[in-house]
């Protein structure tokens, strides 16, 4: 059954015993868009992807991939998707060429087309020269590129990418982001989970923020930023500050204070009213203001406001649980 939406999820729920991993979520992903699924570690992002791609069964609710019910027509649904999990699903003992061909065989890619497509993709992902090497010897970035190539062998309509840049060096991460953009320009719908807020902002046309199994909001990055537009931010740094967050929170008009590296971000109603009290505070505490500026709200600010989570905490959690 043809459908306008690439993915349509209604009241989708997953329980592991008493743990509610995904809690009655609803979302629609349009054909041809890059849809971001943003949330901290353990928010339910991977579980959602697993339900949509046939790795695990939903406890309740429905999910459709291009009109095919993942519960009742899983094979038809799986024919349309390519999946790149967070942790490598490649066989380390096999060569890059054998891995990519094995996946293509499982997806019934005809033999003649298989070889040509494998060559094309391995060249595109700059792995052709290493095609006869065992995957076990590949770096994290190479494995990730090969996983994407493998997922594209059957030319899927929808590509699921689960944390595609986690654990990669800056250059590899940039390359993967460029590839995602290119694929989307060619018409592939991309469902991307990430805990990197900037990545979601750069790539996605719409973003769903998920926390503790519940979707908090779904909107475009710009609209999400607008949710915090009424708030102004003063970013200030001192020569030697110490733990002054609580004291800063008591200044007039300050609604919240967030530490950002060596700076403090003060969320205020009106910067003009807060700045004099900030200067007075610095004088009183004998602190020298080394820099002060007002900022436009970012997606990170929207995320903080909507989830109550510190973005750096989210990254830390993920890095600490990174598979070896």
């Amino acid at each position: 059954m043809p459908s306008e939406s690439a993915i349509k999820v209604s009241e989708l729920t997953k329980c592991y015993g008493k743990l509610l991993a995904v809690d009655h979520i609803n979302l629609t992903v349009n054909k041809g868009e890059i849809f971001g699924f943003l949330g901290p570690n353990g928010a339910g992002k991977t579980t959602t992807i697993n339900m949509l791609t046939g790795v695990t069964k939903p406890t309740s609710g429905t999910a459709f991939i291009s009109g095919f019910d993942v519960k009742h027509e899983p094979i038809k649904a799986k024919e349309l998707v390519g999946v790149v999990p967070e942790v490598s699903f490649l066989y380390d003992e096999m060569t890059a060429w054998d891995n990519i061909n094995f996946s293509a065989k499982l997806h019934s890619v005809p033999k003649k087309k298989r070889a040509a497509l494998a060559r094309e993709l391995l060249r595109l992902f700059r792995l052709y020269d290493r095609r006869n090497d065992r995957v076990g010897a590949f770096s994290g970035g190479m494995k990730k590129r090969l996983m994407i190539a493998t997922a594209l062998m059957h030319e899927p309509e929808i590509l699921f990418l689960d944390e595609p840049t986690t654990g990669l060096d800056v250059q590899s991460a940039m390359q993967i982001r460029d590839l995602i953009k290119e694929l989307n320009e060619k018409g592939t719908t991309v469902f991307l989970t990430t805990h990197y807020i900037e990545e979601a902002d750069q790539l996605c046309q719409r973003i769903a923020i998920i926390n503790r199994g519940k979707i908090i909001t779904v909107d475009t990055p710009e609209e999400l930023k607008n949710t915090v537009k009424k708030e102004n931010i003063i970013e200030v740094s001192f020569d030697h500050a110490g733990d002054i967050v609580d004291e800063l929170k008591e200044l007039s008009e300050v609604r919240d204070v967030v530490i950002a590296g060596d700076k403090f971000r003060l969320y205020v109603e009106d910067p003009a009213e807060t700045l004099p009290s900030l200067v007075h505070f610095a004088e009183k505490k004998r602190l020298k203001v080394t820099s002060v500026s007002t900022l436009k709200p970012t997606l990170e600010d929207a995320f903080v406001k909507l989830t109550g989570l510190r973005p750096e905490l989210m990254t830390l959690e993920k890095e600490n649980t990174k598979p070896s």
Partner: protein
Amino acid sequence: MAEAWIEEMKRVFYIAEKDVKIYFFKGPNLTFGLLLPVVLYVAFSIGRTVESAFVIPGLVAMAAFFGAGAIQAVSLPLERRTGTFKMLLTAPTSLSTIIFGKTLAGFFFGTFLSVVYTLIMLPFSPLPNLLPFFLAILVSSLMFSVFGLLLSVPFQDIPDAMPPATVVRIAMVFICGVFTPIETMPASLQTVAYALPLTYSVDALRQAMSGSLNNQMFLIDLAVQIFYSFVFLFATIKLLKKTIE
């Protein structure tokens, strides 16, 4: 419909082919599949007079039993631990197809080892009735392959899966008439022996080697093994489905 079925059959073969390439020569396979039957045979036969026509069919059955089982104790837990199982699960195929593919790989390994053992033992044994003997090897390898898969379902890693599976197998070897005739065992043990699948494999191979093949008994042995294969297959699919739900 027929085309879809052919595609599924192809996928069964591709999965089996991949398992053969990756897991046939893994260390634990060779240790538990190739060497353990020999070790058990040597340990039992030292200081005893053993009749080759009695023990050799048991040894060939053990080769199928340990061989087909060993690859399953490696492949499924390792795929689940390393994450490669996701490549299979996200492919447009059913869990049953994945299980059939893995069964086929174990079947190949069990058959291969049994034939190797048969060829090695041939100079020391009476010439078997070749067709029934080979048929018995095929049916036994199929049953032991699914049995091995069933034993490995609860485990996510090789070191966890190997020991319990080996204990179960060794216990079965001593109960199922591989070294000692079942008729000489106490009645209670005989009841246990007749409930275990290895008994029928050993009996079928022994009949095929005896020179006086009892067709009816031989067919019963094969039928029981095929019945067990279906039961194990059904249980494996059910259990594995439960673990991924």
